[in-house]
């Protein structure tokens, strides 16, 4: 068991290297674009300054040397220095890590608390009007643009009803968290509802549920003793994967609600052509995604006894 976990964790390493390489390659094609970007915006920089920047950042070294330096930097958790603010990128990201996590966790919590029971209820009465209604809600949730939902929520609950502030982080209180979390959480909620419904339906038709009924159990016991856990195991993978990707999807919601997270930092940095910051954000988000996926993999194998000893 431990061997499996270790192996799985080690498998992450080549992936991390590949991701770092990819990000590095992508952004190495635009070495001097920051300076050009500045010039485009009329904030022309002296060519000497540009040249000095190139030397300082080692932009004239051959590619593999640059990558090597980059990897070494990463190993020491040094994500470079922001072009814009001259702050270490790692510090900038660290400051914004918690707000992003908070938003992601809140959104995921909303999704699980509403989506899973919805899917369950729909599956227990398949083909009914309730089922149909819930599935329509689910497919609509998947089709909504998150930022539009955010705008609508903002208009209705903040500007019109005044129940919540319309944007910002505030002091970190709950009232600022609600609207962005809901905007971000509706689409994973819809997905979870569908997945749960499919999982429960599968299980309700399984042979072992028939056996349970033949033992003389009432439907409530059948569901609680035999369906619940089996369904949750199936749904767990989806929850995990959604969680990981939610951090990336939060980019737009963060920007809309002026939420001080990694996502809005990423967007701002892209506009400002702040390459190290962009690289850093993408790297962090991707690593987060990778770690979550690996954890879900491991957790699933721990929970399902069938796979435990393989």
């Amino acid at each position, binding site marked *: 068991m431990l061997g499996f976990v270790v192996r799985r964790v080690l498998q992450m390493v080549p992936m991390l290297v590949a991701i770092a390489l990819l990000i590095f390659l992508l952004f190495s094609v635009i070495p001097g674009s920051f300076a050009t970007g500045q010039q485009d915006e009329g904030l022309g920089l002296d060519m000497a300054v540009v040249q000095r920047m190139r030397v300082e950042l080692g932009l004239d070294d051959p590619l593999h040397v640059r990558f090597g330096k980059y990897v070494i930097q990463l190993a020491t958790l040094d994500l470079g220095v922001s072009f814009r603010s001259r702050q270490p990128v790692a510090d900038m990201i660290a400051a914004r890590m918690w707000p992003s996590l908070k938003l992601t966790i809140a959104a995921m919590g909303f999704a699980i608390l509403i989506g899973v029971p919805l899917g369950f209820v729909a599956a227990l009465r398949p083909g009914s009007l309730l089922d149909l209604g819930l599935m329509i809600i689910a497919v609509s949730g998947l089709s909504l643009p998150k930022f539009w939902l955010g705008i609508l929520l903002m208009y209705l609950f903040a500007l019109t009803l005044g129940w919540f502030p319309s944007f910002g982080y505030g002091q970190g209180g709950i009232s600022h968290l609600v609207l962005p979390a809901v905007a971000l959480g509706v689409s994973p909620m819809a997905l979870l509802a569908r997945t749960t419904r499919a999982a429960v339906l599968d299980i309700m038709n399984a042979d*072992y549920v028939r056996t349970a009924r*033949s*033992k003389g159990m009432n439907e409530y016991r059948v569901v609680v003793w035999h369906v619940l*856990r089996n369904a949750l195991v199936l749904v767990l993978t989806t929850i995990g994967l959604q969680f990981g990707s939610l951090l990336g999807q939060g980019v737009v919601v963060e920007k809309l609600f002026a939420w001080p997270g990694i996502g809005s930092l990423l967007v701002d940095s892209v506009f400002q052509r702040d390459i190290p910051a962009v690289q850093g954000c993408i790297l962090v988000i991707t690593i987060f995604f990778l770690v979550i996926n690996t954890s879900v993999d491991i957790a699933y194998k721990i929970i*399902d*006894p069938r796979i435990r000893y393989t």
Partner: protein
Amino acid sequence: MSGANMNLLEVENLHIGLSTDTGDFPAVEGVSFTIAPGETVGLVGESGCGKSITALAIMGLLRQPLGLAGGKIRLTGKEIQNLPTAELRALRGKRIAMIFQEPMTALNPLKTVGRQIAEMFVLHEGAGWGEAERRAVDALTQVKVPAPERRAAAYPHELSGGMRQRVMIAIALACAPDLLIADEPTTALDVTVQSEIVDLMKELCAARGTAILMISHDLGLVTDICKRVCVMYAGRIVEQQDSEKIFNHPQHPYTQGLVASLPRLGMRARHGRQPLVEIAGVVPGITAYPKGCRFHPRCVRRTEICETVVPELETLVDGSLVRCHHHG
């Protein structure tokens, strides 16, 4: 009728229908048989003849698109086919128990087998989980599972097929039901294991006085364990006889075909190499049952009357039943 003579189970004129988009079809028609307390009765037929769904109907476990369309089912005299679900549930596991064909999928893969046996005691005898799990180990001993404490903590996939079926038997017999319905219990098992399981069932049920309704396509297996055999074809019972007699004196052409197609030891020595005897034709699908006697397209004794008139179930001199215009 005194209590001692009352049958344990009476199935009378059972009809089960199948509703599809293209219409309703009779899956099972006019099936009747009885089982006395402690008696072993077999239901034999090919796949699709309706024997499994007859069993499910007795348990009240039919689901859409199948449904009970008529007939009566009586358990010790009381009609149960229309019972409200709650009352029916009280019977399941406690008075009638069932074991299924595929023990791998019939057991919850995420629960230990001990737990799944223990459920019976918690459900029907109000036991606490601790006591129930102890009794589960006892139950495993009774079905001759070696190292029962260890096995009780195992998951279904960790056990062999034969072992799993023993677990199913333990579950079914846990609360000493009056009737055990066994739906193809050995079909998914190796041949050597089959006879072990069959012997186990015979022994345990004889000891407890549990009646058995054995469902199988294997005539040899059924006659081994059952005193009486009902042969089903295309949703109808076509013959009912004592096991001893059915091999030597099958009355219905279908049964005769089944008996003839069984390879037997010593046949080659006596008759030389012969191709396996088979019954010509294929089993009709539910939506395409022939008119008149449903077996007539495959029957060597077919005449005109067979194609139009449904033969009634006749009682013969020795008490056996047969549904054929040309039996004997």
